[in-house]
């Protein structure tokens, strides 16, 4: 009927249903639009995720088996353990800063990416964080501001979180058992950051936390 006002027409009503799709504009403005058009170049990425192949995200580390992770984790913790119980991958940077840190015939994933070498080359240093009921290993990590670290993380038993409290907000990380998750993280400010479980994991879930001390 031609005398219908456009606000009462079916086409207009149907179009209103799609109104929320216009939020794509906000996503594009922050470089977070899923499609190629809108906000990919010249914008600061939403979460400042700028991996080498052009997209952000947080995924399972391709190719690293759980057994390999466990081995590397154990080696990492043993190698960098401090007297106070913390783990400081920079503690022996002077002594072990050379590349090719092979151990007993095992090709470690951090070969060539030890903290000393990483600092010198600009490559991220490899870290290993294991979550298990109801603690992290290591539970205290001592790191440096401005240094990139490749966090390799895995839940050992059941699903956990390994989220990092950063003051005004957190970086939420979910870890599935026996799935190695990898994120490269650079802390830009010194401080003491809470690491805590954000996936309910049992009786002592509330107490499951650790620390990252960034100097």
């Amino acid at each position, binding site marked *: 009927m031609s005398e219908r006002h456009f606000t009462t027409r079916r086409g207009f009503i149907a179009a209103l249903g799609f109104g929320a799709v216009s939020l794509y504009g906000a996503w594009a403005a922050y470089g977070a639009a899923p499609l190629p058009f809108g906000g990919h170049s010249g914008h600061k990425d939403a979460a400042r995720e700028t991996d080498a192949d052009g997209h952000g995200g947080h995924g399972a580390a391709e190719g690293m088996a759980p057994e390999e992770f466990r081995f590397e984790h154990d080696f990492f913790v043993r190698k960098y353990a401090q007297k106070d119980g913390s783990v400081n991958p920079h503690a022996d940077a002077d002594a072990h800063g050379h590349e090719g840190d092979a151990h007993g015939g095992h090709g470690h994933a951090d070969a060539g990416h030890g903290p000393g070498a990483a600092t010198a080359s600009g490559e991220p240093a490899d870290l290993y964080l294991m979550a298990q009921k109801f603690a992290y290993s290591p539970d205290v990590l001592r790191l440096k501001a401005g240094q990139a670290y490749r966090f390799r993380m895995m839940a050992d038993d*059941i699903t956990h979180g390994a989220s990092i409290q950063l003051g005004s907000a957190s970086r939420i990380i979910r870890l599935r058992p026996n799935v190695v998750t990898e994120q490269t993280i650079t802390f830009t400010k010194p401080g003491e950051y809470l690491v805590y*479980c954000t996936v309910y994991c049992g009786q002592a879930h509330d107490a499951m936390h650790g620390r990252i001390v960034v100097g």
Partner: protein
Amino acid sequence: MDTLSTSFAPAGATSRLTARVASLPSADKALLALLFGAALLALVLGLVGGAVTALARAGALTFLPDDAYRILTLHGVSVFFYWLYLIQAALLLVLAAAENGRGLALRPLAWTGAALMLAGFGVSEWISATGTPLLYDGSPELAADDPRSVGVFALGYLLLSAGLVASAVCGIATVLQPRLRGEAGEFTSIGFALFAWAGFLVVSAIAATNAFLPGLLWALGAGPFPADHGTEWHILFHNLHYLPLMAAVLVWYVLSEHLTGVTSIHGPRLSKIVFAAYLVFVPPTSLYHMFLEPNLSESVRVVGSLLSLFVSVPTLAAFAIIVSSLEASARARGATGFFGWMQGLPWRNPAMANMGWAAVNMMIGITFAFVLIQEKLAPMLSDTFFVPGYFHFFAVGVLTQTFLAALMVILPALGGGSLWRPDLLRRMPAVVTIGLLIFGAAGITAGFMGVPRRVFDVGYGGMAPAAWPLLMALVGVGATIFAIAISVTVYGVVRTLLSLRPSGGQAPVVDWRTGSRGVCAVPAWTGPLSVAALIAAMYVFTIVAFQLIQSLPIIAIGGGHGH
């Protein structure tokens, strides 16, 4: 202020809906009363569990960890499964029976369905109270050393699913009766919505079986450990979100006609398309629940983020149909104020008040839902209190208030009594919304700050930000307010269910049907303005979230994941 001249229906007048409900066979009435009663019991249990949980998080109550998580499990199981599914089954059956005009078809199947669902209710509540706390998703990995808890928990949901299938089949058979009798060549828009909704209920049962049958088989020693439960749960979880939302919109259609006499000015075809759109749009939009999964491929993440933008299409379209139909009808009867036409709605009727405030809560809930569905923001918000902070606007503000509104209309017709103290009940939705605003504001802020959603003590040995306990205290205050207001409403509805004594007074309705002079000729701006306000709010909070995530003292770089 321009006001609308309304014609109030005379006291004692009954709508088509209430007349048909009142004339149902007594066997149907008994079944429906049983289901409504069981649904309300589940709501009460869930409310108590939720209020205690919120107070414990606020630090006002202290429990041993296992007990605290058992209470949280009882809350989730009672509300998200038994309240929402039992009330949906009951509403499907009563509306289908009213649509049929002659009661339920396949009545024995409906009774079988009710028996299965009630058995599931009992089993689930018992194991939630006594077993290893599994929360409402029943994750088997939490009780790998306690197969009994996993199996019995799964059995409860599987019984519920079987009952839902029986109820849905009964509902489908019932809405088909007028066509089988040759009285109708096609469905009404409500009839088609009931048909599609029933189908969706069956799919939800399939999703529940897919998620929980492996757990039962493992507990019986007849299958491997269900290691993929997390993924299977997400499918059910997504259905669990949108199935009751479709039901709520359908109830809005029914209540709008009952309260004002207005049906869609856009004709039944558009309404049928919108209800079908729920089933078209919901499945493809399910991936956003998985953005935090470490093994989700980048391509799925990108496609999932794009599709999630469409998740509100049917709900907003249905909202626009209802609001434009009401506004156009009101203006055809002489309403002239920009928003003044709304004053003519029967706000003194508690069902109208519940429905109106439900719409407000829906807009707030959608606003924050759209912050959560952005994949780049998931690493800041998923698994935090942001999630319960926003979804209580849906679960309590929209769904629970809408379904209680339906009960306020249906139960007096079903039992022959009258609505308990409508003047008190009509004030409750505003109080519920105030409570939700406090709960939601504190909870969403807490979520932005990273407070985890399932932790009772957020102190972390003094390492957590000082604001966290304060925000949780405010969450407790908000939860207490809306829990009290919902409890008053539930009490009123239960009194109504038990009431057999009709009173002279009826909750008021208006009749705008006769005012079709020039319907649609004048603008109806309320719908488009509401959607515009919604989009503006989405933009504001999305930008806030992006600004916040960019301000963090961290540069996070993905990599190493599959493509």
